[in-house]
């Protein structure tokens, strides 16, 4: 049987990436993703891989663009301010149909903000990770085990759909230690006939590019990309439900916050309040239909985030006109189960 190892979320993520066949990691130091880079720096040389510290997040994401163009599994990690710098490169990667994995271990913002956990970059990750019409796959794990599992999926889906994938966590998940069993799974690395890896006289040249000066060409390509997005929305949505079947009060939360909310739900149930939790695992594609279904017979809906309320927009869109309440802490403050329970109790009285 596979071994259970006690590990920090960030380290589990890095180890899983290596096991998933990633051999090219480009980073730039920033808290609270530090352990990912440190782990890569230590382990990559031992597996014949590369850890390269770039001069900036801008350079790191463009190194990823280059390595992805060459057809290898490649990854970068950062935290909020660094992700802002990567958005240019992410947009080019999306526009060039390249697969890669980007880790965002969020911290508080705006500006330099703080270094404590936050979920205030939901809009950035799901709606504006750079200019132009595009999406990335966004996975929001909520345990160390899930951090590890998600890496395999992120690489495979990024390659399947030729697009960037983001693992979107926060400082709390990154730093917490939990037992993890690495999936015994051989990486499925696909052929990349499109790669710029030298034609060897065997084919005409491959061009990796995002420039289309004819509007008709650009529109056609963007539309083709959005047709792929439609397939993803139908087939790749992931979420987890906890006690939603008979729930009067539906809670929606993701990532580390979902763990806190789960405790509050258990507590509420013990007090006779029928609460339930729907936890999106993919933030894009967003589990809109699942949320609508779970909310069909509830009396109240509460979205909890470590932000001033960002995912709540998507929850409101999902439930079409029903009232959705919001509770959030921001700036690096983690909501407590007691605070969430108090919100649930208030809704129950309403």
């Amino acid at each position, binding site marked *: 049987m596979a071994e259970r190892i006690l590990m920090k979320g960030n380290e589990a993520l890095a180890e899983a990436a290596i096991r998933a066949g990633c051999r*090219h990691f*480009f980073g730039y130091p920033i808290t609270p993703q530090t352990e990912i880079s440190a782990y890569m720096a230590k382990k990559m040389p031992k597996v014949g891989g*590369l850890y*390269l510290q*770039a*001069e*900036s997040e*801008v*350079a*790191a994401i*463009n*190194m*990823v*663009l*280059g*390595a*992805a*163009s*060459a*057809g*290898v599994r*490649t990854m970068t990690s950062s935290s909020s301010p660094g992700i802002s710098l990567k958005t*240019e*490169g992410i947009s*080019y990667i999306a526009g*060039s149909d390249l697969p890669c994995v980007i880790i965002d271990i969020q911290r508080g913002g705006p500006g330099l903000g703080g270094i404590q956990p936050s979920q205030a970059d939901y809009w950035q990750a799901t709606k504006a990770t750079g200019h132009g019409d595009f999406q990335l796959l966004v996975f929001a794990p909520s345990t160390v085990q899930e951090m590890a599992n998600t890496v395999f999926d992120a690489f495979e889906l990024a390659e399947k759909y030729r697009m960037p994938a983001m693992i979107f966590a926060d400082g709390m998940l990154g730093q917490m230690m939990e037992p993890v069993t690495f999936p015994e799974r051989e990486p499925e690395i696909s052929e990349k006939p499109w*790669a*710029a*890896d*030298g*034609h*060897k*006289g*065997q084919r*005409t*040249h*491959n*061009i*990796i*590019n*995002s*420039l289309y000066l004819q509007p008709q060409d650009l529109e056609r390509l963007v539309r083709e990309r959005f047709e792929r997005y439609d397939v993803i929305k139908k087939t790749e949505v992931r979420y987890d439900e906890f006690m939603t079947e008979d729930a009067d009060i539906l809670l929606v939360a993701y990532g580390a916050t979902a763990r806190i909310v789960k405790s509050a739900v258990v507590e509420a149930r013990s007090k006779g309040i029928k609460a339930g939790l729907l936890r999106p695992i993919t933030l894009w594609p967003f589990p809109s239909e699942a949320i609508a279904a779970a909310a069909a017979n509830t009396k109240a809906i509460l979205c909890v985030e470590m932000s001033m309320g960002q995912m709540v927009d998507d929850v409101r869109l999902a439930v079409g006109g029903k009232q959705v309440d919001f509770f959030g802490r921001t700036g690096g403050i983690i909501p407590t189960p007691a605070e969430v329970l108090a919100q649930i109790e208030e809704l129950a009285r309403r």
Partner: protein
Amino acid sequence: MATVFQKPSTLTDAKLHYCPGCTHGIIHRLVAEAIESLGIDGITVGVAPVGCSVMAYDYFTCDMVQAPHGRAPAVATGLKRARPENIVFTYQGDGDLAAIGTAETVHSATRGENITIIFVNNAIYGMTGGQMAPTTLPGQVTQTTPYGRDTSIAGFPVRVCEMLSTLDGVEYAERVSVDTVPNINNAARAIKKAFQNQIDKKGFSIVEVVSTCPTNWGLTPVEALGWLRENMLPYYPLGVYKDRSAGKETK
């Protein structure tokens, strides 16, 4: 009948979009000839910049990647680190390489990335219509220095070869010009050497080509060559700034 002029097999049949008399065309040819004569087309990957030469990806027959503005050396780093057996080059203008991409240029150089950079210095932003570049000369009139580059406001030009030749990571830095036939022949030699260095795993090699932009300089192609000789060459002296393997560290 003897063939006296032939397009290198490493250039596609696509029609170059450059303005009449623009030296980008000559430099493309020199790069293509180097790739052809070294027999490396099948293992070469070029990185196109943002600038007039953005569509270089259509002109070279090797695999090509188009990079964000200034990021070509970082993209080349990723390509080369992923497949060290390939030959990777960037082709960049002065705005791309010495303004927005300065960090990527300096750090790929100081890391000693085993890549080749072809740097086209035409003292102007060609593609966007003739704005001041980091290499625009003091007093030079551009769209954004309509009264001439005033160094008290806009500072001074960047001498890229001089700057990079101070870095230990650099193998080879040479400045050439394509204004006369002898200079074109010399540029051809330098460009080939910059590729050969990479084949020989010697490390970071850059060839700066002093070039013209007749369109945005507001001159005829011939006048532009004269302007280059009178104004650019004194500020940007030609020569080898560094050739580590040959024991040449500074000019």
